[in-house]
């Protein structure tokens, strides 16, 4: 027991984000081997399946000048050309710009100016992210011709880190909903990828990206990550800037990474995170070295799980995968204990909905006002192949009719809910739950789904693959790990320990 406690203490030490008003640490790390190494000439990557590489594996090869960013980018573009007609992950593919950026990255690396582990890595961003000079549609006809004049903060950070922007990924209209029209699940193309960051998750699962970003207002990073068998991390609210992102809700939207493996996610988060004065809710925090904090022993950690009476309404295969996942973590020395949930948790999704639609109505007012009726008439999916019916318009029109008092009622509830959740989370180090009630396009309706509840409280949560369904067969299932605010490093370390003890992340869809 004493040994366990010491390990737990070590784990928790220095792992949390540091609150500060001081200058932030640099976003990119100097390379320790940037100079004096052999140049990329004839890349020894012949025979290597480049799109199948993880971000970490590709970065290591690029750092050692064993892999050309141009070759990698071309391999990804070839993969997209081959598969995206079946998967439908992208709204826009920026092939020419990507190859130009890859050539520039390669030249910089050859000249000894390696920027860090994203240098030369092909990534995609959700089509809500402003991209300077590149159309940003949010998958709606309302914005079909919108070309931003600046990059979203996260896009700028990715570019500064040397990442190669491959394209803009698909989503439902304005990110509303957990279903991404037009994006098929790589594990079963007859099923959906879930959403709303469905294009990012499907592209990763299909080997069409090495890293991606998404937005999560009600579970929209974690849902498709779970459904497509990849990793999705919703960071603590305020940790990653929302500036330059087409919003749903200013106080519920979270931007975060999606990745093939847990090892890849903190590489992205390290670049994405950090204070941004342009985001009204950005937190003044020093960004920890997430990749360095990843590989820590988890023995002795206390993990809470939901009561059986809540879990029983999840899909049977999901319940079973979740049970097995908790056993794996117990096998790693964690102590798993069922916890009593506060009554506010069951009402959290109601408060979340009121806040979400009121915020959304305020944003959409610019399109709905009388003198812009022509704009209002344009609501509908950006993809002309889809029916021009817009649930978004109905949602925001009805949301426009709620009063400020009703909005503040939900915000008042939120204050009490967050206090209760902080008290609850003081009794354990992390909380486990299924990431989704059921696999892709399978129905299950538990009273608490553990999705929008984490947007209302802003706590960090990651979805990591934890199994596959048996009926229907072969659909990915995700485990969600959450913790107190700014303990993102801890949820990722736990997820990594779990991933390292299992092989779910090594399975690939047959495409």
């Amino acid at each position, binding site marked *: 027991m004493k040994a366990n406690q010491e390990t737990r203490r070590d784990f*928790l030490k*220095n*792992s*949390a*984000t*540091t*609150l*500060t*008003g*001081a200058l932030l640490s640099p976003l990119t790390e100097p390379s320790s081997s940037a100079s004096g190494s052999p140049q990329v000439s004839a890349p020894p990557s012949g025979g290597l399946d480049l799109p199948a590489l993880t971000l970490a594996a590709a970065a290591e090869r690029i750092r050692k000048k064993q892999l050309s960013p141009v070759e990698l980018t071309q391999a990804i573009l070839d993969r997209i050309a081959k598969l995206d007609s079946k998967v439908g992950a992208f709204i826009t593919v920026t092939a020419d710009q990507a190859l130009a950026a890859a050539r520039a990255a390669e030249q910089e690396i050859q000249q000894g100016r390696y920027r860090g582990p994203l240098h030369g890595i092909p990534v995609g961003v959700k089509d809500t992210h402003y991209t300077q000079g590149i159309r940003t549609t949010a998958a709606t006809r309302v914005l079909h011709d919108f070309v931003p004049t600046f990059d979203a903060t996260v896009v700028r950070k990715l570019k500064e880190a040397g990442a190669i922007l491959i394209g803009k990924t698909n989503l439902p209209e304005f990110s509303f909903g957990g279903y991404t029209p037009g994006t098929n699940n790589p594990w079963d193309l007859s099923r959906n990828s879930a959403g709303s960051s469905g294009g990012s998750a499907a592209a990763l699962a299909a080997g069409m990206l090495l890293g991606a970003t998404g937005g999560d207002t009600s579970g929209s990073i974690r849902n498709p990550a779970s459904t497509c068998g990849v990793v999705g991390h919703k960071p603590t*609210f*305020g940790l990653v800037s929302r500036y330059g992102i087409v919003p749903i809700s*200013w*106080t519920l939207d979270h931007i975060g990474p999606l990745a093939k493996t847990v090892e890849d996610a903190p590489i992205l988060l390290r670049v994405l995170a950090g204070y941004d004065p342009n985001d009204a*809710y950005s*937190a003044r*925090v020093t960004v920890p070295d997430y990749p360095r904090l990843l590989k820590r022993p988890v023995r002795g950690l206390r993990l809470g799980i939901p009561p059986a009476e809540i879990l029983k309404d999840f899909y049977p295969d999901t319940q079973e995968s979740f049970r097995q996942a908790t056993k794996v973590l117990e096998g790693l020395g964690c102590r798993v204990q069922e916890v009593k949930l506060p*009554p*506010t948790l069951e*009402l959290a999704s*109601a*408060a979340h*909905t*009121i806040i979400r*639609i009121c915020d959304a109505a305020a944003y959409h*007012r610019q399109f*709905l*006002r*009388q003198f812009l*009726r022509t704009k*209002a008439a344009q609501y509908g999916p950006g993809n002309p192949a889809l029916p021009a019916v817009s649930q978004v*318009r*109905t*949602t925001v*029109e*009805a*949301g*426009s*009719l*709620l009063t400020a008092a*009703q909005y503040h*009622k*939900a*915000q*008042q*509830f*939120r*204050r*009490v809910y*967050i206090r209760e959740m*902080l008290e609850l*989370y*003081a009794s354990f180090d992390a909380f486990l739950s299924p990431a989704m009630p059921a696999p892709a396009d399978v129905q299950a309706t538990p009273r608490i789904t553990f999705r929008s509840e984490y947007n209302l*409280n*802003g706590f960090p949560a990651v979805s990591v693959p934890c199994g596959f369904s048996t009926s229907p067969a072969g659909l990915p299932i995700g485990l969600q790990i959450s913790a*107190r*605010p*700014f*303990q993102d490093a*801890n949820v990722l370390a736990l997820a990594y320990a779990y991933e390292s003890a299992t092989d779910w992340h090594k399975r690939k869809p047959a495409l």
Partner: protein
Amino acid sequence: MVDRTFIQTLAEANGIAIPEERLEVVLKQYQTYLELLNRLDSLPLDMGAEPSATFALPTEGTGAVPPRQKR
């Protein structure tokens, strides 16, 4: 009474024009929101609880470390 006329009047007062053919679907959506608010009203809240757009960054109890003091 919450009906189509009510929706139309409320929308016009808010500067939004909802076409006649859309009133019914917006009415139904609005009623679902009222039901959610009724659920929230069913839980008595601490009288001192002030609305908060988001949580304040806690320095205690979350594991977050306070900023270092300048020497």
